[in-house]
């Protein structure tokens, strides 16, 4: 069993690209209509995938951010539920 600090090797760009394209295809979105690489075009596949890989890797940052599972925001007091129940009888 790995300790939390021993993570598996990071996926390569190619592996992420396959995942991204598969995910879009699964949802019925065809990105193959974009030019492969054309800096003059508003968007091309190279830029799209570069951005998508960055978004996926940001998931790691979010996963690493710890929020105390016991933390809760302060709620309005007195709670409004009593009044609502009376009105809704």
């Amino acid at each position, binding site marked *: 069993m790995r300790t939390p600090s021993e993570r598996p090797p990071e996926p390569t760009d190619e592996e992420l690209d396959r995942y*991204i394209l598969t*995910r*879009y295809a699964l*949802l*019925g*979105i*065809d*990105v193959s*209509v*974009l030019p492969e690489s054309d800096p003059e075009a*508003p*968007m091309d596949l190279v*830029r*799209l995938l570069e*951005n*998508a890989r960055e*978004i*996926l890797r*940001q*998931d790691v*940052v*979010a*996963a690493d*951010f710890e*929020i105390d599972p016991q*933390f809760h*925001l*302060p*709620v*309005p*007091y007195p709670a409004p539920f009593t009044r609502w129940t009376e009105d809704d009888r």
Partner: protein
Amino acid sequence: MSAPQDVVVSRRWFLDRMASISSAAAAGALLPASASGAVRARGAGVESLPLEAYRGPVREGVQADPTEASLAETIALVRRGALHPETLVEAYVDRIERFDGALKAYADRPSRSSLLAEARRVPAEGPQAALLGACLAPKDNFYTADLLTEGGSRVFEGFQPDYDATVVATMRAAGGLMVGKAQMGNLAGGRAQVYGTTTPTTRNAWTPDDDRYSPGGSSSGTATAVAARLAVAGLGTQTGGSVIGPGNRQGLTCIKPTFGRVSLHGVIPLSYTRDHVGTMARDVLDAAILLQVIAHPDPNDPRTLGLPGAPNFVRAATPFPGPGPAVRWPTRIGLWPGYLDQEDPAANALRQALVDRLGRTGNVQIVPEIRLPDQWEELTAPPLGGSHGDPTAFFVEHLRRDVRAFGDRLPRFLNGMLQSADTYVKVQQARMLLLHRMQTQLFTQCDVVLIEGTGPFDGTGLPVLGMPIGTVMDEEAGREVPAGATVAALPFGEERLLAVAAAWQAVTDHHRVRPPDPVG
């Protein structure tokens, strides 16, 4: 003197409210009847404006060119019978026809004859006369039954709604005239462009002969129209700085109110939890007047229901009477870390002058450098400070049709397909944590704060105001261009923001400086 609303509304209640909105988004908030028009918007809550709106002095010479008049001056003149809405329409349409070819502020416009016909129907009195023929420029993501609504994008090219957005209906019901739909950045991002390209269209009114200097985005066209006197005021939308940004770049005074103050029904959505309607005007009183007209609960937008009623924004935006300039309520003004430490000495000098002047204003205490809430960087930067899933959810069918229609904005709309559920949950939790800390750690040090960017305040629904503080030389454009200051406040702190801007504009003239007309 009654207390401003930011001190009488429960902060816990606002947290609870925003948490509910977040849950509502995840629970299936839908594109509000965008294609079907099944729910027809009506003007919501048109009321008479506070009398302060009509009492202001009117500058000499304004009647010679009614497009120079502010919104307050316009409605004061019309109310006194010194100016007729038809004359206003003629003056604005003349300017639009003369200069919009160069400025490209508008995407679609009604004919002169139809505007004149509308002007003849503007009533002279009563709640239906609040705006008295004011010529207004809503951004092109507000539905209009008589004009195209394309959202600055090929995605909505040719889209003709069959009803008005609630705020458009409200402004019309109050006697306002829509002189055009203002160009905007592609699906509310960046500056306006030729659809499907990255070629810019709308120019900054201050560099009318040079498109290199950005008008700001995404409410580019509204900003240019108001600054160049092609409209007296207008509406933008802000999900990430899109009202305040272009406003500051074009010398305008703009306010993005607290989330839920203004209906988003009939507005092409970007995010259910972050979209805001904001007013864009030439001075603070005008921004307040327009906000007063549109800030009402709307049965078609549950996010506006159950909130504290709108206070008297117009009074808050008028100079506080007294022996010298003063903010209406005792106010601690905080400075963002590094606020007076800009690289550009000219920009720094303008900020220093602002802080010095405010420091000499009655009822003001300057808090030299506020401390940021705990974990500020983590909570405000991507991914926790982002909103990837929000636009994706609204646009899946459009994405399936042809991704090329999204142009350079495609990643923003596809990224939600990739974000995991646990990240989405964490983003929502982090946003509530941020809002909690902003209220308990930031706004305990000050009542309003001079800030750099609006992002964290957009994501948490807090009100923000932008106002001009002078001009600086842009080396590339070779022209003086406006610099603005941005101020943020607690939930329902609009009055406080307006009062600070009113005190500043009572002793400065930056809001009265107009850009040059295009040549030729």
